[in-house]
């Protein structure tokens, strides 16, 4: 074989249609979010006010941080966690308790993150050994909830006289810290998934577990890293949530698990793994909150809001699925 160049022309160009659709798949969500905001701004009174947009961002930030963090688990091919609510509550309570003891909200934040990461590592070890992630996180979630409820006896936990609120209230340009943390967290998550060894391996593991193993990527270690990332997100989100209200109790955040899963799915992550992006999950969370806000401004009652959000989730996941199918054909 003297000329390799001639063989290179054997290469099959992906069809034009394929690339158009790929473009659409990756930009569907940003475009959709932009469209929703544009339409709402013109048609919904009070939507396009600074205060309302800020409210949307604040309400997105906690769910968004967790959705971004959970994207690591989903991308790595380990579905999602069913124990989000109780782990976040645990993080929040640890944050308050440690802040109260040490007098420093930063110490509390550190403790919350460390504990969440430890819980993440534990689950990563179990899941990495080959046990099903859905059952594992469900079971660990139940146990965590039970332990938190027993330990706190159902009481509202606070940080006492220690000021923890600044974490949630400190603001720049009238936008409070959690929103910046959310944006920063998303950016860091994006950078880590795209530009680090672990991020890349997480993607590859989810894309094809067997190939990953044959390529020397350890499923165990990678899974543990994904759960560590998840733990960091839970820790931060739990602490922010607790500082926002300076309090936390065992029963809090009941609907959080479903909100996060919905955000990740609307963000277009493939449940089978290998596909998904932290930025799109963040947009997914934003879209859901924004739609809820618009419906609220239009005076729709709770039933209609739940119903329409459900309908939108169904339509979006179906649309993303169809697009993905067409583009890989």
């Amino acid at each position, binding site marked *: 074989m003297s000329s390799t160049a001639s063989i290179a022309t054997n290469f099959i160009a992906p069809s034009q249609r394929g690339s158009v659709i790929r473009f659409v798949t990756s930009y569907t969500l940003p475009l959709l979010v932009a469209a929703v905001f544009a339409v709402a701004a013109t048609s919904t009174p009070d939507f396009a006010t600074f205060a309302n947009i800020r409210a949307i961002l604040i309400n997105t930030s906690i769910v968004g941080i967790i959705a971004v963090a959970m994207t690591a688990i989903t991308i790595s091919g380990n*579905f999602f966690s*069913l124990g989000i609510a109780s782990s976040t509550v645990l993080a929040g309570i640890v944050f308050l308790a440690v802040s109260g003891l040490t007098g420093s909200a930063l110490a509390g934040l550190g403790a919350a993150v460390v504990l969440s990461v430890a819980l993440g590592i534990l689950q990563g070890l179990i899941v990495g*050994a*080959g*046990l*099903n992630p*859905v*059952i*594992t996180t*469900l*079971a*660990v*979630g*139940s*146990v965590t*909830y*039970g*332990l938190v*409820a*027993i330990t706190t006896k159902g009481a509202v936990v606070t940080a006492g006289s220690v000021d923890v609120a600044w974490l949630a209230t400190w603001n720049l340009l009238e936008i409070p810290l959690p929103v910046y943390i959310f944006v920063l967290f998303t950016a860091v998550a994006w950078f880590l998934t795209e530009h680090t060894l672990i991020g890349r391996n997480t993607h590859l593991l989810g894309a094809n577990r067997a190939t990953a193993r044959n390529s020397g990527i350890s499923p165990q270690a990678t899974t543990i890293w994904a759960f560590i990332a998840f733990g960091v997100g839970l820790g931060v989100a739990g602490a922010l949530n607790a500082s926002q209200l300076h309090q936390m109790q*065992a029963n809090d955040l009941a609907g959080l698990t*479903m909100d996060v*899963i*919905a955000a990740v*799915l609307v963000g277009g992550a493939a*449940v*089978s793994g290998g596909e998904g992006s932290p930025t799109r999950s963040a947009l997914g969370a934003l879209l859901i909150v924004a739609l809820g806000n618009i419906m609220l401004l239009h005076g729709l*009652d*709770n*039933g*209609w*809001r*739940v*119903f*329409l*959000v*459900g*309908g939108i*989730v*169904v339509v979006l*996941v*179906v649309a993303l*699925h*169809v697009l993905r*199918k067409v583009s890989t054909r």
Partner: protein
Amino acid sequence: MNATREFFPKYALQIVVLVLVVGIMATVSPSFRGEAALFSSLERLIPLGVIAAGLAVTMIAGEFDLSVASMAAFAGAIAVQLGGLGLIASILIATVVGVLLGSLQGWVIARLGISSLVFTVGTLILLRGATWLATGGVPVTLTDYKLSDALTVRIWVFTPLSLTTIAVLAVLGIFLSRTRWGREVSSIGGARQEAVASGVKLRSRLVLAFAISGGCGALAGALSSFRGGSATPDGLANMLLLALAAVLIGGVSLSGGRGDMVNVAFGIAITAVLAAGMSSIGVKAFVTELFTGVLLLVVILLEFVIARVVAHKAVVRRRQPHLAVT
């Protein structure tokens, strides 16, 4: 016959766990013994047992119907509001609605080839919203509470509710293992390609599986709402995880293909005894949740270990080339 020999290894873990749970409960709680214990455990079957049975059918078929608890709440709201038509008629109508909505879900999932896990996360929210709309956001009640009395009549340790559950489990068990369509539904779980190559019509069996889960969810919701005489827009929300736990404790594989209705029945029994026993001791609700979580962890860990051993044995066996050939 060697039927017993086959029965035990397959269900051994669940039997051991069940015996342990019963033993511990009876020891810890003096009031949890004999007929009363049996009765209260059996009463737990509605709605848990029927919802779990529906969920199990889709899981055995290699899919997930996460919307099953929302379906129960929705059907409960319908049944209670149709209470004027009489007990049987309103429950039947609600169940038929569940079957139809389930079939529709199954059809969309089969048609698009979308992951049912993803799709039913959406319909879980959608049906919950539908329940809010159907109830107008407030609890709805039967106009005549006496209607529910027929469901609480006690026949030894049974009530029409527990008997219905047992009947549903039995019918589904027989359906899945003995009838053609039922076996085809089971076959698409673990070995979908092989089943299709054998001539199984994938789409129609998927529709069937989701029709069953929709119907089960609806039946459970209608029955339990009738028993309580009311339905609430946010009711039965924690049933999904409990039913999932029951099915998983029963040993049905999350990846499909493993487990049958006997497994599921054991899983339901274990969960029901645990819940009824805990409640009779007066244990707090969150302690029950803690124990369910621990039990779930223990069972999957044990199953993981057992599966490893079995797989190893199977490899060893397969390496012995010619077994039955005479």
